[in-house]
C-alpha cells in the first residue's frame, strides 16, 4: 500500500504534534495514494458490482425471534440493543393499533397481548432492520464521513472513525441505529457484511426457519430477489421520506409504519 511509509498517528497525537508547528506537513506529504487499495482475499471477486437488497415476507414470519438471536450472536450486539427485531402488531376493532416487541434477552413472545380476543381484527409479525437506503439520511448527516454506502450498496459505519455524536441515530427514520454502550460509537445492521463478502447469507436470513427473510443482489436480473420482486406486490417503509429503502416488504399491511 502506498500509504504504508506514512507515520501512523492517532488524532490525539496529531493534535499534540500540531502544537509544535506545521513541520508535520513534511511527514504527511507523499505521492498520491493509489485508489481502491486491495483488501483481504475475497471469496466473491465481483463484490463491487453487487447491489445488495433485502425482502421480508411478513405473512411467513412466525415471530420466533431466531433472527434476533442469530444477529446478536453473529455481531455481538449488546443486550438491550437490536440491529434487527420483530414487531408484533394487533389491529383492534376500534381501529387502534397495538405494537410491541418481545420482552427479555431471548426475544421470545410467550403470550398474546392483554386485549380480549374478539376485539382483535388481525394480528401479525413484522421483522425490522436497517433499510440500507439508496439515499441514506444517516450518511448525509454524519459530520465526519464515518457512515457511508459501500460499493456494493450496504450502508456501513466506520467504527474507527465515528466520533459517537449520535446525529445519525436521530436522523434515521426507521430507528435502526443506536450508540453501542461498549464501543460508544454508532452501531447498526451491516447485512452481515463480513459474511456476504464471502458468499454467505446474513445470519438472520440463514437462521429464519420459514424463509420470511430474503437476501440477494438487485443487480442480478435473474437473481432470487429480483425474481420475487418482479412477481410479488411489495412496498417499502415510509416512502414519503424519500430515502429509497432497499428493504422490500411483500404484501405488507397498511397499519405498518
Amino acid at each position, binding site marked *: 500500500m502506498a500509504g504504508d511509509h506514512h507515520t501512523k*498517528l492517532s*488524532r490525539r497525537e*496529531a493534535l499534540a*504534534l*500540531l502544537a509544535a508547528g*506545521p513541520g*508535520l*506537513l513534511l511527514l*504527511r506529504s507523499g505521492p498520491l*495514494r493509489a*485508489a*481502491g*487499495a486491495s*483488501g*483481504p482475499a475475497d471469496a466473491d471477486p465481483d463484490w463491487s458490482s453487487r447491489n445488495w437488497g433485502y425482502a421480508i415476507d411478513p*405473512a411467513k*414470519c*412466525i*415471530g420466533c*425471534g*431466531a433472527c434476533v438471536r*442469530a444477529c446478536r*450472536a*453473529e455481531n455481538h450486539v449488546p443486550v438491550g440493543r437490536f440491529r434487527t427485531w420483530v414487531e*408484533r402488531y*394487533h389491529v383492534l376493532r376500534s381501529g387502534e393499533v397495538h405494537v410491541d416487541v418481545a420482552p427479555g434477552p*431471548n426475544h*421470545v*413472545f*410467550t*403470550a*398474546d*397481548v392483554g386485549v380480549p*380476543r374478539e376485539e382483535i381484527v388481525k*394480528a*401479525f*409479525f413484522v421483522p425490522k432492520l436497517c433499510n440500507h437506503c439508496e439515499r441514506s439520511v444517516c450518511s448525509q448527516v454524519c459530520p465526519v*464521513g*464515518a*457512515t*457511508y*454506502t*459501500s*460499493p456494493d450498496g450496504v450502508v*456501513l459505519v*466506520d467504527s*474507527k*472513525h465515528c466520533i459517537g455524536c449520535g446525529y445519525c441515530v436521530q436522523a434515521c427514520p426507521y430507528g435502526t441505529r443506536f450508540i453501542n454502550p461498549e464501543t460508544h460509537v454508532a452501531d447498526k445492521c451491516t447485512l*452481515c*457484511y*463480513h459474511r456476504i*463478502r*464471502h458468499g454467505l447469507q446474513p*445470519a438472520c436470513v*440463514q*437462521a*429464519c*426457519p*420459514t*424463509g420470511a427473510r430474503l437476501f440477494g443482489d438487485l443487480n442480478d436480473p435473474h437473481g432470487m430477489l429480483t425474481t420475487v420482486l418482479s412477481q410479488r406486490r411489495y412496498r417499502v417503509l415510509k416512502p414519503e421520506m424519500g430515502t429509497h429503502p432497499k428493504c422490500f416488504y411483500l404484501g405488507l399491511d397498511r397499519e405498518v409504519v
Partner: protein
Amino acid sequence: MKPTSYRHALLPFALLALGLATAFGVRAALVPDTFGDRGWYRAAAVDDQAALAASYAPPTACAECHDDKAALHAKDAHERVPCQTCHGPGAEHVATNEVKLPKPAAASDCLACHQRLLARPGPFPQIDRRDHFKLVGVKDESTPCTTCHDPHEPLFLDRDRRQARLHPLIQRCRDCHLGRTDETLVKPADHPAIFECQYCHGEIVADFKQRPHQRVPCTTCHLFTKESDFAGRIVRDADPRFCLLCHRAGAFRSVDAPPSIEWPSHRDDVSTGPQDANKRCVDCHQDRIHLRRADLGAAHGG
C-alpha cells in the same frame, strides 16, 4: 515619496504561507489514510468490515460430519429449520471439536416457535401447552416436548416430505364449482370458509365424524404445508411412532384418554407370525380413523 524598504509587504505573504501550512497540516493529520478514495469515507473501512470473523458456520457445514442426523432431519417437518437455529452459532465448533454446541430441549426452546399466538400465521403448527396436554392426556405439566417428539424427526413422517403429494389451494370459483354456481352461494358473503376438507372430501369426513378420532383435526395426520400461493404439500402419516405420539403409555400420561398402548409389545402380542413384524397401527385399526377412499367406493377426484 518612495518607501525606503518593502520588507513590511512580505509580512502578509509570510502569514498566508504559515496559515496554509497549518491548514494543510491539520487536514493531513485529521483525515485518515484512504479517506476519499472511493467516496466521502475511509475506503479501508470496507475491508475492515469484511474481515470480521463469522460466528455462524455455512449451512452446509453441519452435514459434512453429521450426515446421519442431516438425513433424518431433511425428511421430516423440521426440514427447513437450519441446524444452527436451534444449536446456536457453530463456526467455532466446526474449527475445533473442543467446542460443543448446546442441545436445547426445554419446552421454552420449542415454544419460541410453537407457542399458540394470535399473531402467528394460522397454518403454522402451534399449541397452547395446557390444551395440548389435555388433548393427549398428559398429566405432568412439566413433561418436556422431547419426551414424545424428536426435534430431528418431530412427526415421524412415513415418507419423505419433499416427495409429498402436491395439493391445490382452492382459490378460484371454478376449482370447486363446475358449471353453474349454486344459487345459495351467489353472494360471496354467504360463502362458507374457503378450503375446508369436507368441501371436496365430504364422504370421508362424514365417515370420520362417526368414529373415535372425530375430534382430531384432519391436518393433524394429513400434515399440510403451504408451498406457494397456489399449492401446498400434504402427507398422510401412518408411521406407528406417529400414532404413539398420542397413544404411547407413560408414567406422565393419564390412563383414560387417549387409550395407552405398550409398544412394541402390543404388536408382538397380537402377532401371528414373522409377516406381522412391520405391521403398522392402521393395518388393523383403520376403522378407528375413517374408511379409505377405496372402501368408500369413491374415485379420486384430483
